[in-house]
């Protein structure tokens, strides 16, 4: 009798553990889900120079990259590709574009640090960030995903994240998503198409 009871309890425990694991997996998948048809949309975040309101940039093309300055590989790669594209444009074209680096790591990326970081890549880049809830809302609008990953190294946590560079047109509509390490010349071609329309 006692033995049967122990077996039943053990089975219930195993079932509970299995269901629990399934729930954890489901939650992870939700956290990482990427909206396949992002719509974009306005947002207000903070920069070293004050409030950054996307609405204020109507009439300009806005290029947005989600990342963080502690990122050693993906972010510098994409920012370098973007910089290379920006360097191909003349001053008149540049004056009609606003590139943005949106930090998903407000905990470590202060506004000053963010500004120093982005200006190293290109003078026209603005670094923006905000509170965690606002960043999550903006990321969802653009279909960007990110997830903090705790590592064992000295650096603490890393952040896995989407590596698209988004293009918002002069009317504030999300139009293009350049994938990771896009060819700068192809980016220039697309940018010019939007500037000339």
């Amino acid at each position: 009798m006692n033995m049967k009871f122990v077996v039943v309890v053990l089975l219930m425990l195993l079932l509970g553990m299995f269901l629990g694991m399934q729930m954890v997996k489901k939650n992870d998948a939700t956290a990482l889900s990427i909206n396949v048809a992002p719509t974009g949309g306005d947002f207000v975040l903070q920069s070293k120079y004050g409030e950054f309101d996307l609405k204020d940039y109507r009439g300009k093309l806005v290029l947005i990259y989600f990342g963080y300055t502690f990122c050693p590989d993906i972010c510098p790669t994409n920012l370098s590709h973007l910089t290379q594209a920006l360097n191909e444009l003349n001053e008149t074209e540049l004056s009609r574009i606003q590139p943005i680096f949106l930090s998903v790591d407000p905990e470590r990326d202060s506004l000053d640090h963010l500004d120093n970081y982005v200006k190293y890549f290109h003078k026209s880049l603005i670094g923006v960030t905000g509170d965690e809830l606002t960043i999550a809302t903006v990321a969802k609008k653009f279909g960007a995903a990110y997830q903090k990953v705790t590592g064992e190294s000295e650096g603490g946590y890393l952040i896995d994240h989407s590596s698209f560079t988004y293009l918002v047109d002069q009317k504030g509509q999300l139009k293009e998503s350049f994938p990771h390490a896009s060819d700068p010349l192809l980016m220039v071609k697309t940018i010019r198409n939007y500037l000339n329309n």
Partner: protein
Amino acid sequence: MWFVISNRFFSVGLILFSGMLTSCSVQDDIAVDNAWIPEAPPSVSALAGYLDITNHFSNTMTLSGAESAFFKEVVLHQTVVDRETDFARMIEQSTVTIQAGQTLKLNPGGYHLMLLNPRQMINTERLIPIILLFENGYQKKVEFKVRPFRLHLEAN
């Protein structure tokens, strides 16, 4: 006379022997190429190191880490980008094997050395020594050149 001849033989033998040693060290070695660190803003605490590592040994070599006096920590990482979602994950690697005769390429968006908390300024054109550590105790000192990312883009 005998002494002179034997001395000549000894010299020639010594030269041949040292030549053999040299050729052995070229073949039975780890060769590195294109070691570079993209220049970064001075305030960043994480940089990346890239290079090509060719295994000229006759057996598989396992890269198990790296160290440098210039950084508090060096970690072997691999970036994996999901081509469908463009979601990039950075995965810490405890080891990476290199088959005999094969080349492991550490490139932007792939394998790389994550260089944490620089102890000195990592200026452009500076040579940064990093020691590659292999599982069997073999070590390889490599000098990484700090250069603009732009040069990598132009070369590719």
